[in-house]
Every structure is written in structure tokens, then in C-alpha cells.
């Protein structure tokens, strides 16, 4: 096991720069998820840690050793690919044993390690099958088995669940998390799915167009997003934004609606800002702001309401069962203490 240090790393493909100085410190045994929309550079960064892409600037260290010029096979890492990259002409056993066989490990050791990995992953009955004869989830497990057998310092996962159906994805999510808790190997995991990131990570790195937007624990990002991008990316349904400005001790939206502010929110009087409030942070309040209901989505445990509110469209989620019908008006008020104020010009969260 080892730490991974990414220090001011740049990546250029020809004249196009795709990573603009990324720094991330990963602790020993930590489960870190790189998350961001497609094309944000998260997979490129992972491939640079693996050694499949060279590093245009900055340095990456695994443990105390800077690996910029270390060959992939010397880096002591194992990677699970998005399409699993299982060798189709080898049985499950041979797939898992490949790295050790290449290294001329003694046969007894190979058998022992493969048997252990197969047992951990529940693959023992399938050892003689070929990848074609396995289901998606089983293939996924073989790919992980291939990594476990190597007993590496760092596991790298490149969107490993994106080829699975929704139900299997939830199951494999739990399996990977459990595996990490059991093996305690430092893990770097790439995904575009913020729910995966929230549920699995010790630490999330939110990336956007080649930059790190914020690094933090899942709930820290949820409760205290640094900027509009993180606020909108983390959480589902995503945070509602209302444009307007600060007016005294309240927020005045562009259409003249007054929204309350709590303590700790920054911004000076008259400053153009954006008011951010999560769907679940609305309260039903007869004295609140009128909201015209467009669509109601009862899920049983809660009711999601899509409504026109303060001159824009919002989503609000209530524990109460809403009896209003589409077209009717309800009165709601945001929980001021949980609202966020963002600078309209920079997108940064403003703190008093």
C-alpha cells in the first residue's frame, strides 16, 4: 500500500492542453474518486498514474518514488478497465494468473493467489470458463480478480460500472466498497456518476475541463460546495439556482421575490449573486413564497414538485404528501440556514 501524490500535473496532446496543473494528495489506504463530466480529464489523469499516458508537466509519486519515468509494469499498480480488457482466449483462471505467469512466479504460488482471489470474489465455480461465457457482473469481478492477484500498491478503476445495468451497478458498487474495506488498498476510481462518487468514496475530487474544482469528503462537498459547478454537480436532483442580488439582510431575486438569508452567508449589499438551495431544503409555509406547481412526482417516501418559483423553475422535495394538483399554487420557503450564496461573476461561494 502507498500514498499517491499528484503535484501540479499538466497534460498536453499536441498543442491542446487537457490538464492545467492538477494537484491531489491521496493517503495510504484511501478510496479516492475522480468525478466530473465527460472530457474533464479524469480518465487521462488515471491513465497517467498507470503510466499509459506520459506526463507533460509536474510529477506523480507513488509512495516516496516519483514515477514520471517509471515503466507501467514497474509502478506496482493494477487497473480495471471500462471494458474489463479480459483476454478472450484465456480462461478465468489464466486471465487472473497472467501477470504472475509473465513474471515466472512458481506454480504453487500462482494457484494459491488465484484461488484466494476467486474465493474473495465468488468466482471459484467459474475458473475454467472463458470470458464469453460469463455475465457482465462476473466479467467485472474477473477484472477485479486480475488486479487483486497482483497484490499491488494501488488499484486504479476506470469507470468500471458504466457497462452494467442499473441494478447490477448498485450491487457491484457495494461489492467494490466492501472489497476495499477488506483489502485496505489505496484506490483511485474514475466515474462520471456523482451517486457512485457519493456512495463509495472516502474522498472525492471534482474535476471540470482539466481543473480540480474541489476536493473533500462526500458530505463535505454536499454541504459546503466551493462553487456553482460543484454545487450543481453533486446531489440528485441537483441544487436549484435563483439569480438576483443581496438586498439588506435578504436576497432579492430578479423578479422581485425576497428570499431569507441565514447566518454565515456572505456578499455585500447590492452585489449580483446566485441563491442556491437544494430540493430537500424547502419547507411548506403558508406565509412563504407562492410557487405554481407544474409536475408532481410522488415516490412514496417523498414527493418531488417541479414548480415556478421566484421567476424560474425549481425542483423541491417534501417528506409531506402534497395534495395540490398541477396548475395550483403552494406556498413554500427555503430553509435559510442551508441556502448558499454564490458570486454571480466568479461562481465562488460567498462566506461571511
Amino acid at each position, binding site marked *: 500500500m502507498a500514498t499517491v501524490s499528484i503535484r501540479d500535473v499538466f497534460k498536453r496532446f499536441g498543442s491542446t492542453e487537457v490538464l492545467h496543473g492538477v494537484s491531489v494528495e491521496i493517503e495510504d489506504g484511501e478510496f479516492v474518486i475522480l468525478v466530473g463530466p465527460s472530457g474533464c480529464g479524469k480518465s487521462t489523469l488515471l491513465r497517467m498514474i*498507470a503510466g499509459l499516458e506520459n506526463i507533460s508537466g509536474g510529477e506523480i509519486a507513488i509512495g516516496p518514488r516519483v514515477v514520471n519515468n517509471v515503466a507501467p509494469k514497474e509502478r506496482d499498480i*493494477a487497473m480495471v478497465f471500462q471494458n474489463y480488457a479480459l483476454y*478472450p*482466449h484465456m480462461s478465468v483462471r489464466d486471465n487472473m494468473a497472467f501477470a504472475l505467469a509473465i513474471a515466472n512466479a512458481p506454480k504453487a504460488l500462482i494457484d494459491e493467489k488465484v484461488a484466494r482471489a476467486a474465493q474473495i470474489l465468488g468466482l471459484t465455480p467459474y475458473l475454467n470458463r472463458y470470458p*464469453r*461465457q460469463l455475465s457482465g457482473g462476473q466479467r467485472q469481478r474477473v477484472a477485479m480478480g*486480475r488486479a487483486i492477484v497482483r497484490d499491488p500498491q494501488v488499484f486504479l478503476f476506470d469507470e468500471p460500472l458504466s457497462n452494467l445495468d442499473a441494478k447490477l451497478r448498485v450491487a457491484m458498487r457495494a461489492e467494490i466498497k466492501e472489497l476495499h474495506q477488506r483489502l485496505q488498498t489505496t484506490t483511485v476510481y474514475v466515474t462520471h456518476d456523482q451517486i457512485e462518487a457519493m456512495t463509495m468514496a472516502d474522498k472525492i475530487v471534482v474535476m471540470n475541463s482539466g481543473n480540480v474544482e474541489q476536493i473533500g469528503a462526500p458530505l463535505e462537498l454536499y454541504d459546503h460546495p466551493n462553487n456553482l459547478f460543484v454545487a450543481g454537480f453533486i446531489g440528485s436532483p441537483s441544487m436549484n439556482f435563483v439569480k438576483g442580488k443581496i438586498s439588506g439582510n435578504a436576497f432579492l431575486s430578479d423578479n422581485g421575490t425576497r428570499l431569507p438569508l441565514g447566518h454565515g452567508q456572505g456578499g455585500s449589499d447590492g452585489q449580483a449573486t446566485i441563491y442556491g438551495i437544494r430540493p430537500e431544503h424547502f419547507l411548506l409555509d403558508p406565509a412563504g413564497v407562492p410557487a405554481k406547481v407544474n409536475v408532481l412526482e410522488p415516490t412514496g417516501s417523498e414527493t418531488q414538485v417541479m414548480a415556478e418559483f421566484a421567476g424560474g423553475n425549481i425542483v423541491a422535495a417534501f417528506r409531506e404528501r402534497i395534495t395540490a394538483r398541477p396548475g395550483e399554487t403552494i406556498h413554500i420557503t427555503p430553509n435559510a440556514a442551508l441556502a448558499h450564496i454564490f458570486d454571480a461573476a466568479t461562481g465562488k461561494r460567498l462566506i461571511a
Partner: protein
Amino acid sequence: MDATVAMATHPASFVRKPDSWLTKLFDYKPFLVFLCMLPTAGLLLVFLTYPLGLGIWLAFTDTTIGQSGSFIGFENFEYLMEDPVFWLSVTNTIFYTAIATAGKFALGLWLALLLNNHIPLKAFLRAIVLLPWIVPTVLSSIAWWWIYSPQFSIVSYVIVDVLHLRDTYINFLGEPWPARWSLIVANIWRGIPFVAITLLAGLQTISPSLYEAALLDGASGWQKFRRITVPLLMPILAVALTLSVLFTFSDFQLVYAITRGGPFNSTHLMATLAFQRAIPGSQLGEGAAIAVSMIPFLIGATILCLYGVGRRKWQQGSDND
């Protein structure tokens, strides 16, 4: 007007007319299958089955040009068993096929691996590689005939007059062994594009992530080739090998255009000998018998290629995607 009256006055809008016999016939699946297969079956019958059948029939007759023969059983074959020229053509064909195929696959695979890399002018180079395949064989054979000419050979010129490695021009086609090797070289040259392009297509079906996975697993370049490329290329290699063996075994144009089987029948392949005996020699029956005796060899080679390196266990089972 009530509903029953409406039914009676507009029956056509409620009840379908019974199908005509023609509609029924075309709805009858066996008839439809027969009808759809007819054009292909007709073409195959006229242009493949008939000539093949006629050839086999001729092999059992003493037909000569201008005189329809009569059935003589296995007499043609019995005669050939005693004929040293026939046996020479058999060993020539086997030797020619084995050596030329080995050469084509070694060089073709090498070329495919080169072209599979990112190199400048890739599309242009791939087009160039196809040239020997595109040029009509008779035309390229004439070029090779010039190259092998005893007086005007460019190869001899380079060796003798430029490099001074020899004193005399090489008599490529005048002696049996040099002639055989010369033909094999020409055949390899002509066969490389087919092998290279087919194997290149096969190489491109191998996912790059497999090589990346192997790289992380610590495989060297040779190990990647040996453990990933070769096994995954096997299925397409089997098909290419089968076709290539068939083309080479039944080769006629190249040999006939360059040596016509000479010197002293020493480069005759079964195909050229069959033609030689049947048309210029006018012994149609005997020529047909030589051609027919190629069939067991061809079937044997096909079975060997397809079952030897063909479908592997790992290809079986379903795709669960």
C-alpha cells in the same frame, strides 16, 4: 338505417375477399424459398456443377480434341500412376504450395504488424502493398519473366556488373531447381498482399486495451505478440491460410506465363500439366484425370487448415452483452 342494413349494403368494407390462388402460392413458404434460391442455384448449376461434372466425366473417357470418346473406367488414372512426369508435378505442387505459403505468411504477418503501427502515410502504404494483388497476374508474370531473363535480368546485372559477386549471369529459368525457386519467389510476391491485408484486418479487431492490460501486467513486446496477438489472430489466420493454400495449390497463370512447365517438365504443377496434356496435347481425358486428382489434395488441405488452426474453444459460448 340500422346496423344490419349497413352491413348488407357495404359488405366489402367489412369482409376481406378470399385470397386468390396466386397470393396463396406466394404465401406458401417452401415455394417462396425455392423461388428465391432459383437464380443462385441456376447460376451454380450452369457455371459450376456442369463444368465440374463434365470434367469428372471426361476423366473417365478417352476423349481427345475433335473426337468424343467412350467410357474407359480408371484407365486414365492407371496410366498416370505409371507416369513419372505426373508424379513430378504432384511433388512440385506440394513443395511449391508449402514453401510459398510459409513465405507468404511470414512476410505478410510482418508487413501487417508494421502497417498496424502509427506510421506516416499509412493509407498510402497500405494501397501500395495491395499493388501486386491488383495487377493482372499475366502482366506481373511477364515482368518476372524479364527479371529472370538469362540476358536482361536486372538481378543478374546488379550481382555481376554492379556488385561483382559473380562472373556469369544467372540462368534462373534454364535449370530445374533455380526455376522452381524463381517461381516460388514470384508466387510469394504476388500472395503477400492478400495475407498482409487480411491479417491487418484481424489485427485491428484486437482491442488496444488488451495490450494496455498486458503492459500493466508486465508483458514485454514479444510476450504481448506471443500471448495476445497470435492466439487472437488464429481464427482469421485459419481462413487466410485455407484460401491461400487453395490459390497456391491450383496456381496456373504464374507458372504457365513464366516457364510453361519447363525446363524439361521440371516446374509443372498439376494445373499446368493438366492444361498441357488436355489442350496443346489434345488428350482431354487424360488432362481431366490430372485435374480431378487435385480434388482430394484440395479437400485434405482445407480440412487440415480449418480444423488445425480454426475455431477455438474460447470463441464458443454466447456474448452476454
